[in-house]
């Protein structure tokens, strides 16, 4: 698995296709947060901005190999593990920007509540921000995996489905991503940071199950 991850990571780095999603994420942070916005609001925004980043990176990773090269790797390790390596590489590649985004917010935002009345302790707030980032990273990767090969083939359909998936993750109250973002926004109103344990506990098994199902489908549908 380590060898596969190294191969996929080298493929991702060498293809330079990671650049547009990362630039988009950086642009989101700079334009949407800037300096001096309330810290918990900024963490909520940074976490939500991770969704399109991870969906896009997952698409890049699972479509990076030409079919012939994919067949060669799949013969060596089996199609399930080959696909899993691509999805895991995407999740791992989203980790550095997620950490950088969290650090950016922690360093440059205003450590007070929305109405500038209550001071927010930075350390618990950053922990909440990191947890929210992890939830969004996991769910974004799962949505990216569902919206691409082997479930949806081609370009138009996966891209549209990915966009729709991002929206569906943020809007309804049921999704763990939505729950963490709303939790941070609500915390920003009152100036209290609450650790999003429940969404975190939900996001891990959901994304693991979704990715496992998609990887098993890779063996059936290629």
């Amino acid at each position: 698995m380590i060898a596969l991850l190294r191969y996929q990571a080298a493929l991702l780095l060498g293809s330079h296709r990671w650049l547009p999603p990362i630039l988009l994420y950086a642009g989101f942070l700079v334009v949407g947060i800037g300096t001096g916005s309330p810290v918990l609001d900024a963490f909520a925004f940074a976490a939500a901005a991770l969704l399109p980043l991870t969906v896009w990176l997952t698409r890049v990773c699972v479509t990076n190999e030409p079919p012939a090269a994919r067949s060669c790797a799949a013969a060596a390790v089996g199609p399930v593990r080959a696909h899993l390596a691509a999805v895991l590489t995407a999740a791992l590649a989203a980790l550095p920007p997620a950490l950088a985004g969290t650090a950016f917010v922690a360093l440059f935002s205003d450590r007070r509540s929305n109405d500038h009345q209550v001071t927010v302790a930075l350390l618990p707030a950053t922990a909440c921000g990191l947890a929210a980032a992890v939830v969004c990273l996991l769910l974004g990767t799962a949505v990216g995996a569902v919206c691409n090969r082997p479930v949806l083939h081609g370009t138009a359909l996966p891209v549209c489905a990915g966009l729709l998936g991002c929206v569906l993750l943020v809007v309804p109250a049921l999704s763990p991503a939505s729950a963490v973002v709303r939790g941070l926004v609500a915390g920003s109103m009152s100036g209290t940071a609450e650790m999003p344990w429940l969404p975190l506990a939900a996001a891990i098994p959901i994304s693991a199950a979704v990715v496992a199902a998609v990887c098993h489908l890779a063996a059936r549908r290629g």
Partner: protein
Amino acid sequence: MRLDGVGRRYGLRGPWVVRGVDLDLPERTLVRIEGANGSGKSTLLRLCAGIDRPTTGRIRGRPRTAYVPERFPPALPFTALGYLTHLGRVHGLRGPAADRAAGVWLERFGAAGHAGTPLSELSKGTSQKVAVAQALLAAPELLVLDEAWTGLDAAARAELDRAVAERVADGGTVLFVDHDPRRLAGAADACHRVVDGRLCPAPPPDPAAHTPAAGPRVTVRAAPPGSGAELPEELPGRPVTEREPDGTARLTVPAAYSDALLRALLTARPPWHIHTVTAPVAQRPPDGPAGGDAMPGTGEPDDGAMARGAGPATADHSAPAGPASPAATGPAPAGPASPAVTDPALAEGDHR
């Protein structure tokens, strides 16, 4: 490995591409799959390589597998050596071993000069060499070749023939499809034909028959270590063996197996002594002029090269004329021999 009632279709209601396939792939076998275009050969090979799961049926006892696709589009951001090193690790080699194996296999296929070239700048033939090398890197137990010879130059095709023989001699299984019926002719242990997605046996050419279908063959004369010692068990290429009165053995194998046979004889315990290695003409009838057998291969460089060259080069026009005038084969090869000796693929028989 065994396939039991394997079927495959794409989509929930798609037509069956492959259906009801029972196939036994034991160790030490070279299996040829043939069939018309679109008959389901490639799908069957992908199932055997483990890239696709069967829709019905099951595959048991999968060994370490490697696959060579028919076309290898080089749209990867690696150099040839970099890609092979990565794939070597994916196949389970350790870092330095993968690096070494990548270099060795590029060298064997005559692509060592392209080791540092980005894959996107390689010619079609050279990228096919990379595709073949990635499969052979880690000595797979099951090698699946989907028209892997397409696009390779003559020297690389011959090298791939020998690499395949090596895999089989080492106890592996090789499954291949090639549009050229003379590919590894006479070396295949089993031959199957795919007709409308179903597999039926096609008889392999009799290895003892000196027909064009049997392919070019090499005869090795070897003396036993002691007087009258038995030949080692399971010699590569299942040689046709004759013992001379003094105990010397004459072993005839498909040309691709010659290196593997020599290796087996020389590394046997105790080792055998090699007298001569000769490449008789494949098209000659068994009772025709057998001069090639008596002549030491080292003394007649042109003979070996001519004999190899006569196989593919004159197969088409000499087939009808061959039986009518066996004596004419003596002087006739002088023509094809002169261009043939310049071919690097054909000269290798003489270096032994």
